[in-house]
């Protein structure tokens, strides 16, 4: 079973991201589950959502306490919401930011956590294509680039299904760019965008 936690702010499409992630996971052949955690908060308030993939039935309704993957759609949340908490050893953290992984770790107080940290300027990319700060597709594409759970095609497909037409196409374009961005950075670690612990560095 793979468990994902998504942090974001109200209005950034966090809940949509969780659902789209579950859909993409299903397309990838997994059982999937998305659990938004709701508050009565409004636009701008911190929001968290969860997603699980498995190859057998998913029964638990427990919130994800020990995520394998954490997506942070807003770098300003790194301090307040402690995104590395409960992260499974060797887990993956993908942060929407224009800074680099060490900055992220510093901001999150997670300099020494055993995790792979990937940064992607998802909002910047999305603004280019969609014109709105809704970076869900780009974030999921970054996830697809960094792990085997979902594919870029699946991400493009679920967004296109939900938002047929121009918006779906813009999301797809953003997804592709984010995907390429992360793939490129994963291929060439010199830019320091991927900051890993010692253990992680050997994995990479």
């Amino acid at each position, binding site marked *: 079973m793979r468990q994902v936690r998504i942090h974001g702010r109200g209005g950034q499409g966090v809940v949509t991201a969780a659902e789209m992630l579950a859909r993409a996971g299903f397309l990838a052949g997994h059982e999937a589950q998305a659990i938004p955690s*709701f508050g009565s908060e409004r636009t701008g308030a911190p929001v968290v959502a969860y997603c699980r993939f498995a190859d057998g039935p998913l029964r*638990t309704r427990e919130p994800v306490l020990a995520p394998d993957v954490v997506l942070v759609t807003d770098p300003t949340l790194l301090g307040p919401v402690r995104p590395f908490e409960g992260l499974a050893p060797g887990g993956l953290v993908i942060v929407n930011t224009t800074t680099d992984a060490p900055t992220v770790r510093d901001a999150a107080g997670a300099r020494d956590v055993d995790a792979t940290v990937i940064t992607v300027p998802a909002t910047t990319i999305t603004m280019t294509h969609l014109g709105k700060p809704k970076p869900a597709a780009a974030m999921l594409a970054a996830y697809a680039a960094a792990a085997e759970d979902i594919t870029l095609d699946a991400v493009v497909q679920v967004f296109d299904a939900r938002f047929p037409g121009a918006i779906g196409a813009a999301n797809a374009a953003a997804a592709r760019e984010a995907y390429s961005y992360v793939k490129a950075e994963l291929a060439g670690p010199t830019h320091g965008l991927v900051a890993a612990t010692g253990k992680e560095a050997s994995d990479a």
Partner: protein
Amino acid sequence: MREVLEGSQAVARTVARCRPGVVCAYPISPQTHIVEALSVMARTGELADCEYVNVESEFSAMSVAIGASAAGSRAYTATASQGLLYMSEAVFNAAGMGLPIVMTVANRAIGAPINIWNDHSDAMALRDSGWLQLYAADNQEAADLHVTAFAIAEELEIPAMVCMDGFVLTHATDVLELPTQEQIDAFLPGYEPKQVLDVLHPTTIGTMAGPESFTETKYLQHLRFLDAADVIQRWSDRFHDTFGREAGGLVARYDAHTFDRDREAPGANAEDIVVVAMGSVLGTLQAALPELRAEGIPVRLLGVSSFRPFPGGALRDALGDSRHVVVIDRALELGSGGVLTGCVGRALAGTRSRIHSVVAGLGGRPILEESLRDVIRRAHSRDLPTLEFMDLKAGGIPRPPVGATEVAR
């Protein structure tokens, strides 16, 4: 076709395929997504030959449903929490008049303090309203239950609530397989009201009953509730036979080892601790309990699918020889214990059973697998009191920091 769907979407689509004549909508979290989805289908034509009425309150939602049902339509609405209480007068009334309305209750706590998150105190408050209350353990069952709910309600002329945990189910996205329109058309008989406001055969519905007839009225209502258990089981069986999966019934039995749902699972043994629960926590229990089995704790799981009528007989059958019961309860009878526990206790009266009431998940507090395992372990070690508040924080309610008020500054 298996697909990924939000629970509310799944319910809305299934309800639409049951071809209701009138759907009433009033927003309240966490039910809102259901009526939103239905409104879209009413506009797109997916919900055909149906009047979608945006009412001004839950009270009117139920009232419109009453009128629609009495006029011969299959009537549906959905609500939660304060909304259920706000409509409660009409809820009782619909049952008293024998109008087979189906209503989804997206279970949510009741204020004050106001709280939008899940527990069962809303439906429990109306447990004596004369409605059937069918509880869904997951979103697949939530969708499926609506099909049987219409069938059962209409056969019995008793309205039915389909209860699904708010947010936990309504807003969760799962991989589901919805009954198709063709399947439902074949399964669910058309609505043929036995009492209807008919201009050719006029009748007066909703008379006043004096002391000379009220007791008998209630007695007959009681008898019909007794009949309801068989009808619920029959439709559940039929659903199982038709669709190859479980939906509803009176109680849910689970395999002793895999904790997969299994209608053939034998009753519990004398040494077993049986966890009785209702709603989505059953899924979490399914996930949590195998570990205890591995530890050697003889634990079994039993779900209550029909809370009203309360299936005392089916519950006793499933408990088999076990006399040790832990009830996970998401509603509290103040000064007493869990509401479900009270019903279980009455069903087990005279069996000398040891019954623990574990009040858990009030107002949206997440129910964690580890917490559940903890209480079972303690029950096993005879360390669990008869009434336990799971994950109760020490020190009571968190207080605002001293001095953090405008006045103090």
